């Protein structure tokens, strides 16, 4: 009887594989078809530009550089001795070092750096992974984002207690939310920016 049971189980196995034979493939033909990446997908690092002026949002505050766990970001932004403001000279990302953790994006308070959903950036040479400011900006031009910057350099507001929901680590004052609320044209920062695919 064990023999019959074994044969039955062998046939069950064949039935399962045979059943799948008629089904459509779940894979896709990659270069012709692509998955639609979810909005939160962390691909290549890009620099974002202001939608109106076209300038980089980056202020050269070095927060992303400090947050990067693999030292893939290099920024040169010396302080202007007179105005005490930083001037962004170089912003280089070594994509070969990048580990796509998204910490830079979370560290940024100025909507200046983002991990776009792009994932195709292979290069024949290692040097090709070194993206300078221009390239980063170019790639980031058509990346959609929600601007959470302060419109004006606002006065220092004491820490609001209501920093919830968006769990981004912020070093520089947690004033963004409250500030954004005060300036009507800015989009709602509380709205989760990753709504759906």
């Amino acid at each position, binding site marked *: 009887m064990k023999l019959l049971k074994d044969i039955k189980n062998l046939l*069950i196995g064949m039935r399962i594989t045979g059943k799948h034979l008629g089904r459509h493939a779940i894979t896709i033909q990659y270069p012709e078809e692509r998955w639609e990446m979810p909005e939160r997908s962390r691909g290549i690092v890009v620099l974002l530009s202001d939608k109106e002026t076209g300038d980089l949002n980056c202020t050269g505050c070095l927060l992303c550089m400090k947050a990067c766990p693999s030292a893939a970001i290099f920024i040169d932004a010396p302080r202007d001795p007179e105005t005490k403001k930083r001037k962004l000279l170089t912003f280089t990302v070594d994509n070969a070092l990048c580990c796509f953790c998204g910490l830079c994006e979370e560290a940024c308070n100025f909507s200046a750096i983002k991990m776009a959903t792009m994932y195709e950036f292979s290069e024949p040479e290692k040097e090709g992974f070194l993206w300078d400011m221009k390239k980063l900006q170019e790639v980031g031009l058509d990346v959609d984002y929600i601007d959470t910057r302060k419109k004006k350099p606002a006065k220092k507001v004491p820490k609001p207690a209501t920093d919830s929901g968006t*769990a981004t680590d912020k070093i520089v004052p947690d004033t963004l939310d409250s500030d954004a609320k005060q300036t009507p044209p800015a989009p709602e920062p509380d709205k989760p920016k990753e709504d759906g695919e």
Partner: protein
Amino acid sequence: MAELRTEEFTVNMGPHHPSTHGVCRLILTLSGEKVIKIVPVIGYLHRALEKICENRTYAQCIPVMDRFEYVTAMSCEYLFSNAAEKLAEIEVPERAEYLRVIMLELNRIASHLIFYGVTAMDIGALTPFLYGLREREGIIDLFEMTCGQRLTYNYIRIGGVSKDIPPQFEPKCRETIKTIREKLNDYEGLLNENPIWLVRNKGIGVLPADLGIAYGVSGPVLRASGVKYDIRKDDPYSIYDRFDFEIPTRENGDCYDRYLLRLDEIKQSLNIVEQALDALPEGDIKAKVSPNFKPPAGEVYARVENSRGELGVYIQSDGGKKPLRVKMRGGSFNQLQVLPEIGTDCLVADLVAIFASLDIILPEVDR
């Protein structure tokens, strides 16, 4: 007539061998096909993760943790966050804890699905591998939807989780659970009672409970030997004490029991995810943690139950923003250590089956 001279010979199984799950090298002494001696040689994947962690701030350590055991990266993240929270005595919001449990359990299922496929492949059935990975894809999609990455999530942070789940997560998650429940029938039909599968796995690589205890084996491998020890129940972390689930155990401790036990665990984990989804409260997802997170000086050993046994981390802090020492402990380390004990005196083919059933993942061993 002179007697035939026989000779033992040495075979290098690995580092590049299809069934060593990475780059493990086993130096086998064979007599014919029979394995007489096994010497595991590891270190091919040694990336000095512990040294790397010593060089990074606590927040930066978490992406490194993803690389420690990338099949269940969530539990590594959780582990490190948990240890850091213990050091700094941070209270994690309720919702974050629930989200963590959902992710941990989904990741456990994903890991066991890989185990299902890989074990079947090592024993020669190639199709289950694709089936296992197909369902895992659903889970990975959920992760990607939530945190943006498919393998190195960097989702669970010190003090909570990085992002709230998107609105479409819950329906999709329930759908995935339903699919996996359905597909489990296929899995079981393909292998569970298959006579070839039975003869290849039953009674092979028996790990007696006392040997497992002596070698510090934990997780499904030990539970298949009949020791009911699961950190989720016995040393509860997070909010596991709120869920109603069972710790499946098996008696024989052979490859077949280890295989069945993991399928049972998938079912239990599905239950936990469902309960967590039902009870998911509203609220904050992250406690206030400064980016210049500096825990007070001290030390802690935290541990979680992941799909390969106890995953532990020992952190010593000197009060600075970088840990003084991070020592990681993975279940695979001890399971590979016990392999020479249970793998000798069997055939090469059995060794492959045993290796697969221990579910060893080499980055965890080599770190």
